[in-house]
């Protein structure tokens, strides 16, 4: 496990500002998170929850401020140590469940061997050879979660992770998140619904 035998992680942002389409989404945002901790980013629609996650993931360039990770792998940039689970599932309908997962394992540097175990963990082990096109929205989400497990990254960036999941799926996901935190991982999740685990709330764009 890459998690437990490495040092403590500390992710901190200072004065982070985000401008999208000429509009300032938020500015002067300070936040911090340490390993073993889950941070639930909340706020009304359009307050910049997704933008914050994408800033951390390096998919957006901050208009101001800095985001620093202490204690991580010195040879890797911050985005390379994150796994971003966005609204979209990054699955190819033409490929089978197994092929989808194996590709991301090869491309992002996970263990192919973990793939089968991850599929069992999310309850998709019966569907491994089926095309991803046959999966329902909830099952596609489950497959994305399996990718999260296969590619072991210490920082999980989750954007509304529980949408499309049924109650059993949310329970399963809660368990996975607790396990990840226990291994010394870090979770930053943008969410409206309760996350299902103990988390610290980070409210952005409070002024209405």
């Amino acid at each position: 496990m890459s998690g437990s035998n490495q040092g403590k992680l500390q992710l901190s942002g200072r004065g982070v500002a985000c401008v999208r389409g000429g509009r300032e989404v938020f500015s002067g945002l300070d936040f911090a998170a340490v390993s073993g901790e889950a941070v639930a980013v909340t706020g009304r629609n359009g307050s910049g929850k997704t933008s914050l996650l994408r800033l951390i993931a390096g998919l957006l360039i901050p208009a101001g401020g800095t985001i620093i990770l202490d204690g991580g792998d010195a040879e890797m940039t911050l985005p390379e140590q994150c796994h971003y689970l966005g609204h979209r599932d990054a699955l190819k309908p033409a490929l089978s469940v197994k092929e989808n997962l194996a590709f991301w394992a090869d491309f992002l540097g996970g263990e192919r061997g973990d793939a089968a175990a991850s599929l069992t963990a999310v309850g998709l082990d019966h569907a491994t050879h089926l095309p991803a096109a046959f999966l329902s929205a909830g099952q596609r989400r489950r497959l994305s979660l399996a990718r999260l497990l296969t590619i072991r990254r210490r920082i999980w960036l989750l954007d509304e992770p529980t949408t499309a999941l049924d109650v059993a799926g949310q329970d399963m996901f809660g368990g996975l998140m607790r396990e990840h935190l226990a291994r010394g991982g870090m979770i930053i999740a943008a969410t409206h619904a309760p996350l299902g685990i103990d988390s610290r709330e980070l409210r952005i764009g409070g002024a209405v």
Partner: protein
Amino acid sequence: MTLIDLANPTRFLALTARLLPWLAAATVILLAIGLYQSALAPDDYQQGATVKIMFIHVPNAWLSMFVWGVMSIASLGTLVWRHPLADVAAKAAAPIGASFTFLALLTGSLWGRPMWGTYWEWDARLTSVLILFLMYLGLMALWRAVDDPSRAARAAAVLTLVGAINLPIIKFSVDWWNTLHQPASVMRMGGSTLDKSFLIPLLVMAIAFTLLFVTLHLAAMRNEILRRRVRSLQMMQASRVAFSSAGPREGSASNEVGAA
């Protein structure tokens, strides 16, 4: 067996299983007779032995149009009567029709080489067949482009019927284009009526190839029905997984239902 009876795919499969061996046997016998007769056919006084190419070229050219006709009727079946097997028939026919059209082109150009000195001449007839071939390929691409067969069926049916209406227009314009540019320079197979010694083997070969098409078409339709069955079962399997993951108890229960 009426058309209504055939609407049931399972009954269709049973019928196909019974019919296919007989059809295959008839095809083989007729092909053997046809080949024997065309081997015995005399040489043409103008074309020599190359006239033997005619015995496979003409049946293939005939089938290239016949198959499009079959697909057009099937498309009507899809759009008008909503016969459940119509789009299966249309889809299964396309690759077979394309193969026959390809053979018509190939044998045509192999026949043309000794006659005209080039493999390809932008002759009205060959050009029309080439366009027909392209339309077959386009139709196959359309079937392949859409994952859900019932959704692809409508689009393919419309395209097939538009093609059926357009083909005579294309043929006419190509004729006109061709005569405009090179007035009757191309020598076709003697304009006079065919001699009996050619006609009989040609007819036998044409019937044999038609039977071959029917046999292959039925077999391909059977495959297509099975493929769709596999698809729907796989989709059921995909949705069942969600149940079984809810708890081990439910999963084993569904297995028992399946085994019973």
